[in-house]
């Protein structure tokens, strides 16, 4: 039993398998951000260092899994880019401003079957920094602390981005519904 448990690992680790499947797409995404082969390779390596503790949490669904690796690689590349340039070219203005209270009270939002499609359209339009936190939290089931570790940002930043993403979706949904009413 013990022998089989050990030989099973020696054959090929999960990490090994995932690297072989996703390293190229991760590298491509990182290269798009960094424009440098060596830094892109570093981004891939660093991404795996961050993902290593969460391998068992990544969904089996191939599309979702692929998106996860791409998301982590993209953010790692952005972090490397920002450190290199010493200024935040990838930081969105919304991320610098204080967390405005906004209004995500759904009381005045019409909730119906078509709302999901509306919300999906709004999510597509969100900036990546919000969208990715939303995906990591909702789709991949990661806690804010875990997202902070993976994206190498503060937990507070993750919390703010997640809250802001939800407010943005609610506000936009309300706005679209009001526009439709006017028509």
């Amino acid at each position, binding site marked *: 039993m013990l022998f089989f*448990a050990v030989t099973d690992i020696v054959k090929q680790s999960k990490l090994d398998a995932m690297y072989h499947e996703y390293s190229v797409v991760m*590298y491509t995404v990182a290269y798009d951000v960094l424009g440098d082969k060596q830094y892109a390779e570093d981004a891939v390596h660093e991404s795996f260092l961050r993902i290593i503790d969460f391998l068992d949490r990544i969904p089996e669904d191939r*599309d979702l899994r692929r998106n996860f690796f791409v998301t982590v690689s993209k953010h790692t590349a952005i972090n490397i880019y920002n450190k290199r340039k010493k200024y935040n070219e990838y930081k969105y203005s919304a991320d610098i401003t204080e967390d405005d209270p906004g209004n995500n009270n*759904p*009381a005045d939002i019409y909730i119906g079957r078509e709302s999901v499609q509306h919300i999906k359209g709004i*999510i597509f339009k969100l900036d990546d920094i919000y969208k990715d936190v*939303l*995906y990591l939290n909702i789709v991949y089931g990661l806690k804010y602390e875990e997202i902070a570790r993976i994206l190498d940002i503060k937990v507070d930043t993750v919390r703010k981005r997640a809250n802001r993403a939800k407010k943005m*979706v609610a506000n936009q949904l309300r706005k679209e519904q009001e526009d439709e009413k006017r028509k």
Partner: protein
Amino acid sequence: MKNANNIDKILDNAFEEMLSAAAFEACREEAAKIPVPADKVDFSPEHKQKMSKLFAQYKRREMLKKLAKASKYAACILLAFVTVSAVTVFSVDAWRTRVLNYIYDPSAPGTEFHFDDKGGKYFSEDGLILNYVPSGFHLEKDFSDNVNIRLHFEDDANNYFTIVTHGLDSNIGLDTEDSVVEEIIINGNKAIRVTNDRDNLIMWYDDNFAYVTNGNISHKELEKIVKNVEYK
């Protein structure tokens, strides 16, 4: 007011549910749009080396995790085996050891005999069957209570013998002053024979009780009685 709060909560939950459903769909759709890289990437030897190191670290960590898990599993199996063995072993009468301790001092008025055992029985509605009773003897009195069985037999010539049961965790005090105390074997178990001018006594035990039988009859008869006692 409370009702309004509840409605807000319901709408809030409904919104969260819709957001979740929409996020799943959006994420899946976006993932499908990620272009498959056309070129094969030739990673540098430095990168390959770094990754190999990471794989090795991960393998070691996983191996330790699995070993720990397998060890726990093995420990559970071992524990189960030991438990089953112990139950089997201790259910065999031959392995059940009754310890009968005493220090006999001929000059002392009495000797305390200790049975060190948590098993055995106390008196129940079942009873003792004496498969041998010397001729002429009959049960004169039954003093049994809910702790001990006490049977007193007599014959017409004022000869008597009594048999009393005790729990196997008992301390039994006997009058051994000016007596001869000997160890004998009754039905394979250690027993004590006490002889003096007053009467003869045998103390012995089996899986159910410790017994004391005494009377003004011969040891030969007493031994025959005690060897044929049955508890049912």
